[in-house]
């Protein structure tokens, strides 16, 4: 009876999901309500979790509820603490969710909402969540070791070093693109700049208050900090309206770049309690709160999707980023479908705290489904905007010009309805001077969120507040990531360089750490600056590079998973990681290849360099360069990008080769050869605690 009711229940779920897909598929040409996308997504997630993740957990990995976990084996009450699965889910989700899943789908929306939506769902079910889950499983069975260590022990020492080396460059690109998003959102916006700048003294106040008056009172200081943040958003409006103050907080992109680079350097050498920790509290709680708020808003308001399901830009001629649907849609959506960075988190603190092996399914697979849902909401927020507004905000000035008139003219020619009044009205509503060419995704998300949130709380009068709240929310956790990433990068670099120059390895040496921090900051600062001065908006170059880097890491992680499955003698189930690994590798390598060799200068770096070279020989100066010297710089930048992209290709291909070697070796041996910790029984009290 019970079995029957379950069967009926799941059948109904499938029917509901299918119906939602039907509405989406059949309503082409008319706009549909976002609720259908939400329903379709949730049904897909539930069915995938119930059936596919259970298949992986029980039939393939054979998670064993009686097996020892690192949390119990090394229990120290600090790093290794057996933790309830719901508590740990929150921790893991907060660690994996960031700007990536929010920005990717917004940029991808230029092709319409359908391609991104389909990839977000298919990608997460068969690639992203599988990767997170299996890496978590692999790390959990190996004393919670890190991804680099796991690759070293399963594939060999050399591939492990290659992967570490690759990870460092991925970090630089990640930090550059995150910082670029902040610069693009804050340039010439005194309100936004003021509120984001205010977070620094607010966080420092919280840090000092916590250090000297109320240690350990996280909730209290976070509430104080949150109140101050809200006040700073309100105060920002007055700053903007006052010409003298507005001038102080009005900065160009280039100025902001230098400020950010300086900030990144100083913040990452300050003691953590002063700035990083308190701001991390604010950004983490704000992130979780806003995501929940956005979900409620999307469901209650269920906005109509004004973006067409498919736009003409699936041919690769879009203004936001260049390149065909295959492979560039996949590297653009990135994090919400499959994100390589998660393999670092899944082999980080989470496996040290898993109470019982069987929890890995809920935490690994489940949290990634949740991340995909966040991406779906970002997609809804972008698609709910008037397409005309979306393209006005996301097209670079080199394509639509810098005035309302030129933007309206160009976008109308593309066939999207837009009037100058629509742009001025939106600009006024969000309390900004201009919304034209606010590329980078964050401002678009902010307008979308402001529409949704002001629909729930307040009216259009509140839109400016919500817009700046959304900008603050993104800038806050991006700055935390920049600061923490610079620190992590510094340690990585000291570790890497330490292999050659022993003096660099001393992490407590001031000189060594300043040098390593300097290298890190100038590394991402270089790409950031290059992106900011790019007339095509920088995002056009950096986001695909970031996507390629991220997907490359996912490829590495999936290759590791595949090798482990073969070494476990689970050959007949290896397809669960072979298929996503092959797909991710094909997408990444094709995209990287096109970024280098494509003959369209908007896509291929070499073609771009050639175009500038030709101009140089004819003594013509092309924007953004203002002199022949700067032209040479642009060409040099192109070659740097080519080198970096080529490096990513080499890293991925070499890991692939080492992976294939490992698999072939495993195939000829007739017993499992994994390097798991030997089986131990979980202590009896563990099952009682559960």
């Amino acid at each position, binding site marked *: 009876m019970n079995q029957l009711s379950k069967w009926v229940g799941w059948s109904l779920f499938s029917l509901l999901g299918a119906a939602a897909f039907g509405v989406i598929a059949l309503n082409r040409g008319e706009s549909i309500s976002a609720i259908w996308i939400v329903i379709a997504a949730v049904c897909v997630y539930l069915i995938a979790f119930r059936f596919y993740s259970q298949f992986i957990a029980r039939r393939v990995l054979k998670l064993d509820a009686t097996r020892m976990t690192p949390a119990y084996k090394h229990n120290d009450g600090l790093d290794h603490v057996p933790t309830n699965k719901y508590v740990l889910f929150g921790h893991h989700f907060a660690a994996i969710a960031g700007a990536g899943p929010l920005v990717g789908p917004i940029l991808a929306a230029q092709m319409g909402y359908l391609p991104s939506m389909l990839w977000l769902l298919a990608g997460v079910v068969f690639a992203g969540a599988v990767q997170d889950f299996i890496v978590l499983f692999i790390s959990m069975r190996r004393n919670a070791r890190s991804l680099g260590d796991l690759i070293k022990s399963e594939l060999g020492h050399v591939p492990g070093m290659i992967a570490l080396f690759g990870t460092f460059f991925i970090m630089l690109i990640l930090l550059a693109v995150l910082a670029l998003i902040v610069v693009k959102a804050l340039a010439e916006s005194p309100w936004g700049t003021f509120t984001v700048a205010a977070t620094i003294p607010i966080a420092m106040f919280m840090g000092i208050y916590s250090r000297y008056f109320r240690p350990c009172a996280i909730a209290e200081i976070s509430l104080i900090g949150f109140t101050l943040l809200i006040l700073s958003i309100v105060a920002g409006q007055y700053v903007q309206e006052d010409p003298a103050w507005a001038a102080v907080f009005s900065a160009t992109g280039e100025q902001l770049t230098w400020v950010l680079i300086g900030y990144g350097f100083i913040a990452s050498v300050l003691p953590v309690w002063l700035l990083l920790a308190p701001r991390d509290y604010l950004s983490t709680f704000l992130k979780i709160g806003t995501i929940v708020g956005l979900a409620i808003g999307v469901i209650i308001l269920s906005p109509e999707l004004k973006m067409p399901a498919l736009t003409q830009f699936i041919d690769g001629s879009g203004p936001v980023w260049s390149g065909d649907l295959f492979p560039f849609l996949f590297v653009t959506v990135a994090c919400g479908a499959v994100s390589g960075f998660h393999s670092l988190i899944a082999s980080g603190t989470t496996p040290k705290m898993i109470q019982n092996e069987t929890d890995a399914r809920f935490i690994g697979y489940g949290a990634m489904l949740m991340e995909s849902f966040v991406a779906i909401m970002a997609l809804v927020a972008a698609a709910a905007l008037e397409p005309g507004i979306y393209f006005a905000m996301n097209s670079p000035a080199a394509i639509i010009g810098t005035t309302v008139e030129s933007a309206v003219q160009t976008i109308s020619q593309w066939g999207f309805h837009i009037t100058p009044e629509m742009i001025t009205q939106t600009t006024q509503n969000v309390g900004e001077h201009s919304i034209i060419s606010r590329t980078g995704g964050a401002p678009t998300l902010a307008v979308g969120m402001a529409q949704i949130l002001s629909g729930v709380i307040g009216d259009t009068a509140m839109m400016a507040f919500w817009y700046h709240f959304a900008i603050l929310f993104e800038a806050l956790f991006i700055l935390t990531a920049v600061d*923490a990433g610079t620190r992590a990068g510094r340690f990585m670099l000291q570790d890497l360089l330490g292999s050659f120059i022993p003096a660099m390895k001393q992490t407590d040496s001031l000189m060594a750490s300043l040098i390593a921090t300097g290298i890190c900051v100038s590394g991402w600062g270089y790409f950031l600056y290059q992106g900011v001065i790019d007339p095509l908006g920088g995002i056009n170059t950096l986001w695909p590079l970031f996507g390629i880097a991220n997907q490359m890491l996912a490829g590495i992680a999936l290759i590791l998973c595949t090798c482990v499955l073969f070494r476990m003698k689970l050959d007949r189930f290896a397809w669960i990681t072979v298929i996503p690994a092959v797909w991710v590798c094909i997408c990444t390598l094709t995209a990287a290849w096109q970024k280098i060799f494509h003959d369209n200068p908007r896509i291929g770096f070499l073609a771009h360099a050639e175009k500038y070279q030709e101009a140089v020989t004819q003594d013509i100066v092309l924007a953004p360069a203002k002199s022949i010297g700067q032209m040479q710089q642009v060409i040099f930048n192109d070659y740097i990008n080519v080198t970096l992209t080529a490096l990513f290709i080499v890293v991925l291909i070499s890991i692939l080769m080492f992976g294939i070697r490992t698999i072939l070796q495993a195939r000829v041996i007739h017993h499992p050869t994994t390097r798991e910790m030997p089986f131990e029984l979980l202590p009896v009290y563990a099952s009682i605690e559960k």
Partner: protein
Amino acid sequence: MINNQMNHVWKQFAQSLRLMVGVPEYSVYVEHMRSVHPEQTIMSQEEFFRERMEARYGGKGRLNRCC
């Protein structure tokens, strides 16, 4: 009964929020030290808090957040 359950859920929620910023349950740590390492000194709550903060942000090259 329901009150108890609500309490339990709330506690877990608060615990999860603290863990998101890298601070596990102090009482669990104390309990663990008392039962397993009675000979060692137990950190005060403040020391524990600082130790966890340094461990989370002090680096060692491990990323604890994502893009």
